[in-house]
């Protein structure tokens, strides 16, 4: 080299170099393994240690799953079939899966109804989650809660139909009055809806047989179904309520602001489980005697309160992260408060808040298992109660809890994957 430089720095290529393949040891998997797993002594030790741990776990897990038995009516049957081979006693899942999913009281000939409601969920949720789908599909989403309620609880169709009519009428009242002011519109909407619901309640009481399917009372709900009901209802309610609380906390009206601050700080300072006990026992004292205020509704109110306070704080962070210029640009274009919130501030603040909201949603979904403490038989309640304490299946811990883990994991992992996808989709500010 230095030689070449010595006489001249000018250079003209005379022969073309043909492209050569990379050295074999340095391509693909081998290269990756060397660079990532064995790049240093420490790294090599960690890799080997990790491998050993994985091997150890698999050596226990695989025989447990592969040798496991799915047949038998009790743990004794399992022991006989397995003969100490170390396999799992999955017979309990085969025999008790309806109880794990629906609870032990839900009539077995009606299980198709919640199952159908669950299947319809896959029609109702995508229009909300995937905004590229045609907008008319939101109609399915809007109708879903009423259909699902009717399918799961049964009874006369008058109740959900009037609930729906109330919402529609309230919405129309709102759009009519909205021009006079957002709050006035909201008030009008709520009043009209309440009137329709009251009429609906009256008619349902008079005419209980109209379009009736067999009713199932709330106390018969259970299993994973109960977790799903609580999780879905509470998440969908607590996001809008959380938004309102977060906006209220920023309000210039001292009363509104004060209420929101006190509510959020109080709820965040109290463990969920105490709120559930309050829902279970204490609320009954405050209600007029004779009113039958559904336990599930009480629990939904408490969990929703709880998670909406957390979501409000997450969204407040998103609101605070927005530059002041965004508010000013909206104002200077003449948008009113509701418009600039809905069109400019919230879309951006919510986008920032997605990871936090998903975090709360996943946590909330798992916290629905706390209702087992107030003797509701959700998935955990079912396992701890009726199944493990039955003579046939006492002591089958691993299989049951593993099944519960799998069910929750599938849902929670799905939610978190969705949120990552959503974040990628919304990444519009290319900076």
């Amino acid at each position, binding site marked *: 080299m230095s030689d070449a430089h010595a006489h001249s720095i000018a250079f003209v290529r005379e022969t073309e170099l043909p492209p050569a393949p990379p050295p074999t040891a340095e391509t693909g998997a081998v290269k990756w393994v060397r660079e990532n797993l064995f790049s240093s002594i420490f790294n090599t030790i960690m890799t080997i240690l990790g491998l050993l741990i994985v091997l150890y776990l698999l050596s226990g897990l695989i025989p447990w799953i592969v040798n496991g038995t799915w047949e038998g009516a009790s743990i004794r049957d399992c022991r006989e079939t397995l003969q100490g081979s170390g396999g799992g006693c999955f017979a309990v899942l085969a025999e008790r899966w309806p109880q794990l999913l629906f609870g032990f009281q839900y009539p077995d000939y009606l299980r198709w109804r919640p199952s159908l409601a669950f299947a319809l969920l896959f029609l109702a949720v995508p229009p909300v989650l995937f905004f590229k789908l045609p907008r008319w599909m939101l109609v399915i989403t809007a109708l879903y809660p009423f259909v699902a309620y009717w399918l799961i609880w049964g009874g006369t169709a008058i109740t959900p139909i009037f609930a729906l009519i109330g919402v529609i009428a309230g919405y129309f009242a709102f759009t009519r009055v909205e021009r006079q002011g957002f709050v006035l519109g909201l008030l009008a909407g709520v009043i009209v809806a309440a009137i329709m619901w009251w009429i609906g309640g009256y008619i349902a009481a008079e005419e209980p047989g109209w379009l009736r399917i067999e009713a199932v009372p709330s106390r018969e709900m259970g299993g994973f179904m109960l977790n799903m009901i609580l999780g879905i209802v509470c998440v969908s309610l607590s996001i809008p309520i959380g938004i309102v609380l977060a906006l209220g906390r920023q309000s210039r009206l001292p009363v509104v602001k004060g209420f929101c601050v006190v509510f959020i700080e109080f709820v965040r300072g109290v463990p969920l489980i105490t709120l559930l006990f309050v829902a279970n026992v204490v609320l009954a004292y405050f209600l007029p005697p004779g009113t039958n205020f559904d336990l599930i509704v009480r629990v939904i109110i408490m969990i929703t309160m709880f998670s909406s306070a957390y979501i409000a704080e997450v969204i407040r962070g998103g609101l605070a992260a927005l530059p002041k210029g965004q508010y000013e640009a909206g104002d200077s274009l003449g948008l009113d408060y509701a418009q600039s919130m809905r069109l400019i501030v919230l879309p951006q603040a919510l986008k920032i808040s997605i990871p936090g909201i998903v975090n709360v949603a996943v946590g909330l979904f798992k916290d629905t298992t706390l209702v087992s403490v107030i003797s509701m038989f959700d998935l955990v309640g079912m396992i701890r109660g009726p199944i493990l304490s039955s003579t046939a299946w006492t002591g089958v811990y691993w299989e049951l809890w593993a099944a519960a883990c799998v069910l929750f994991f599938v849902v929670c992992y799905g939610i978190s994957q969705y949120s990552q996808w959503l974040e990628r989709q919304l990444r519009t*500010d290319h900076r």
Partner: protein
Amino acid sequence: MAALDTNPPGMIVSDEVAIDINNMNKWYGSFHVLRDIDLTVQRGERIVICGPSGSGKSTLIRCINALEEHQQGSIVVDGTPLSSDLKDIDKIRSEVGMCFQHFNLFPHLTIMENCTLAPIWVRKIPKKEAEETAMHFLEKVKIPEQADKYPGQLSGGQQQRVAIARSLCMRPRIMLFDEPTSALDPEMIKEVLDTMIQLAEEGMTMLCVTHEMGFARQVANRVIFMDAGQIVEQNAPEPFFTNPQNERTKLFLSQILGH
């Protein structure tokens, strides 16, 4: 709904009053930012406001569309007095366009959506018509081909021109500019100033906080110098630059023109 251009082109200063500020005072806490401001702007007039940093220029023009509240005196915009009545404020804001130093485009919306948002929601114009208008103004600021991009994909100069187009889509009768070029690189300043000059030539009433003295000489009818919250001197551009009266004006001009 609205005809394409609210102001007939070439309209020169008339005796119709666009903005009338009388004895206006404003405090931030106990700090007296604006002191006894008296300012009357005729329709079609182009006013440049300059002054040292912190003298209250931004605060003054932000008071005109009620982004800041004033505590004493009166501001009448297009015959509507600014009061605490939200209806009046929204009416004034929809008639007064504003461009900011940092553009303040909505990053989650495309350029087209940025431009049509307010016409659709505030003016209740059908979407199609709003899009046609937006295209008209995007062509005017010479970036129609960027309509479907997001603000983050545009250069600073392009973003500021979009911001101008966005304001124009509301067909304002008055435009306020708060240092529209001071966040831009030199080569982008020109494209924004060209747009503003074009706007001035069409007779738009403009109030412009800027330190671009070339622009002031070329388009302004009047230059206002502010210091410490007061209007210290105002005059037509030629006498203002060549023959300033007040000591502070002289000092300021020597500082910004001196190098």
